[in-house]
């Protein structure tokens, strides 16, 4: 039993935390977020220099062979800093899909570009009617000639309009909700027939509705075996969920610290409002939510890491991830709502970072399945 980190992990965390502290203040974030792309290419290049962008990839592909625990550390730090850059979309989701499904040529062609910070990828899987059902894919890919023709629509694709390429799920056979028959494709965002409607999300990120109308791609665009992508989608989703959990822990830590600071400085009735027991107990519950969430995020990452090396049980990992997201989805919402309440009027303004942390925390629940969704999955599995 060991909850410590390796020297490399500690160093990585420290350098990322230092970078965020120095270069990624709240006002900087505000400027970045309001910019044309909604994220900063300079920050992205700095992440590449730190080795963050290739962390989970093999050394041959410009990476470090990092585990889910390494991803946890990065995502937790990004959460603490309320970082908007598309790490989750590009490195965690698209990167995992390519790493898990791609052939040697595809991995060699795509992963080094991600690691070097040269290419942004988006994960285009969810659809307007799919809600959180991973198997629900109506976008169709017909085999035509030596390649495929895609038609359909993808919903709330994070950084879909900023990405150079999209990892797109499409059905090559079967009915709308069959696990079998789903395939993955790598598609250039600027390919003919791809249309993106770019918009802001409530929590300060960018996303897009993406439509495919008669989009023609070659056979080399297919990632993995035709019709067999569900297992990869499920696995990438688990890694993505664990990463979101870790981000949530970082967000809660920062938001709790800000709330505590506010309780100690804001004076009413001639004393800091943190003297009032009604508020103290709520602050304690926020802290307990964060600690229990951290335990769940650790559990998910450790189980995934164990399953990846073959030491652990894949089912236990699947279960732990569902449990963690169900837990953290609820805890995140509670911490966010309490933080706003304890900040009083300031909590509902745009001015303080607190409301921005709260918005991100609440929106975590809507990514890759909310608490009810994962609770039902967990109940069915356990």
């Amino acid at each position, binding site marked *: 039993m060991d909850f410590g980190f390796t020297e490399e992990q500690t160093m990585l965390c420290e350098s990322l935390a230092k970078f965020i502290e120095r270069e990624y203040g709240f006002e900087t974030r505000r400027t970045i977020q309001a910019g044309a792309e909604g994220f900063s290419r300079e920050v992205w290049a700095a992440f590449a220099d730190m080795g963050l962008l290739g962390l989970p990839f093999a050394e041959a592909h410009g990476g470090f062979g990092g585990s889910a625990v390494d991803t946890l550390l990065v995502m937790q730090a990004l959460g603490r800093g309320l970082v908007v850059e598309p790490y989750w979309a590009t490195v965690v989701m698209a990167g995992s899909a390519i790493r898990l499904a791609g052939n040697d040529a595809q991995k060699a062609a795509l992963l080094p570009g991600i690691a070097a910070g040269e290419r942004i990828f988006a994960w285009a899987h969810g659809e307007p009617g799919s809600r959180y059902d991973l198997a629900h894919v109506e976008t169709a890919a017909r085999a035509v000639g030596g390649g495929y023709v895609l038609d359909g629509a993808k919903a709330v694709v994070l950084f879909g309009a900023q990405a150079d390429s999209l990892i797109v799920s499409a059905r090559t056979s079967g009915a709308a909700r069959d696990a079998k028959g789903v395939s993955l494709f790598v598609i250039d965002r600027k390919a003919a027939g791809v249309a993106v409607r770019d918009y802001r999300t409530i929590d300060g990120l960018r996303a897009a509705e993406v439509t495919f109308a008669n989009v023609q791609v070659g056979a080399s665009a297919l990632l993995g075996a035709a019709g067999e992508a569900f297992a990869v989608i499920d696995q990438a989703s688990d890694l993505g969920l664990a990463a979101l959990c870790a981000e949530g822990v970082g967000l809660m830590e920062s938001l709790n610290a800000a709330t505590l600071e506010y309780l100690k400085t804001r004076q009413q009735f001639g004393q800091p409002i943190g003297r009032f027991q009604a508020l103290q107990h709520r602050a*304690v519950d926020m802290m307990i939510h964060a600690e229990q969430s951290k335990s769940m995020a650790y559990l998910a990452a*450790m189980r995934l890491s164990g399953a990846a090396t073959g030491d652990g049980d894949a089912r236990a990992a699947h279960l732990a991830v569902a449990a963690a997201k*169900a837990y953290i989805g609820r805890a995140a919402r509670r911490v966010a709502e309490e933080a706003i309440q304890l900040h009083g009027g300031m909590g509902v303004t745009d001015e303080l970072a607190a409301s921005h942390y709260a918005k991100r925390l609440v929106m975590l629940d809507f990514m890759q399945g909310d608490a009810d969704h994962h*609770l039902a999955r967990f109940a069915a599995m356990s």
Partner: protein
Amino acid sequence: MDLDFTEQELAFRDEVRTFLCDSLPAAIARKVLDHRHLTRDDQGCWQDILAKKGWLAGHWPVEFGGCGWTPVQVHIFDEEAAAAGAPRLIPFGLNMVAPVIMAFGSDWQKQHYLSRIRENTDWWCQGYSEPGSGSDLASLKTRAERDGEDYVVNGQKAWTTLAQHADMIFCLVRTSSEGRKQEGISFLLIDMHSPGITVRPIIMLDEGHEVNEVFFDNVRVPAKNRVGEEGKGWTYAKFLLGHERTNIAGVGASKRELATLKAIARSETRAGRPLIEDAGFAAKIALVEIELMALEVTVMRVLAARGKAPGAESSILKIKGTEIQQTLTALMMEALGPYAQPFLPDQAEGETPVGPAYAAPLAARYFNMRKTTIYGGSNEVQRNIIAQMVLGL
């Protein structure tokens, strides 16, 4: 970062499992698993078996006759014993007064009392709370006046668990009313058979007899039974609070109760289907199961960080552990439907049950377990502790 036990720890776990399998009397385990009341003899029998094995005080340092178990070994023992349906060990001697005697007691106290606790000869109870001093413990009024080689104790303790069976009581008493209220308190070890002590039962809401009022009427206590210095009792009491928390999260027992809850929910039906397949009820079970998973990892994080004194993290474990215990008892009661209502506290073994065989104790147990968020420092006091010690509010 990993959750795995070491090979030595796994070997220890196997040893504990084998021992429990061979030595825990089946009839006693059955009572625990079925939520039936244990008699004094049931409790004594199991503690004797452990004492004979040398494991009653396995967590004590070797110099005091323990096995010097590591925190992880203690955790493994507690978890395995709970899973097997072993009675919870009475903590007042083993986990509460013993560490105080080890740290602050005289040589005579160590020699005399520790072996008697380790061998299950003496049972202890805790004389802290009073009718007017619950969460505000330092306001206690029971007083001890020095008279030659003795103290003369007068006053009243309340909520004294198992006083009806106890041989000894460790008491916080007021030896001075000068200065801050914390400063006039001393820590006395008092023989429960002393003249002048009267024990009166307090009957709980499930009609059980666990707690008592203990009256002291000119009870003479030899001065050699005072732990440490006069007036320093509050310091020793706070030290004790840190040690009271062993296994406070109760993860092993809650895992066992979760399994029981699922078994009941499989047996009960709603709309012609097993209750466990009802989406609403299944979600309630899943929620508490996930809370318990989180708590188990939090306990492991606390264990892995050991070395520093137990502090406010034990307050988190107490709050979450007791909330989970209560939720589990509530869900078991809910699972019964209308059969939650029949109350048969005196049901004889073998008597035809009313409703399902598992039903009778569950509502009573739900009510009984409301105590958990009140005792040992109410959960609100725990939140005060965290607010002060961790959050600095």
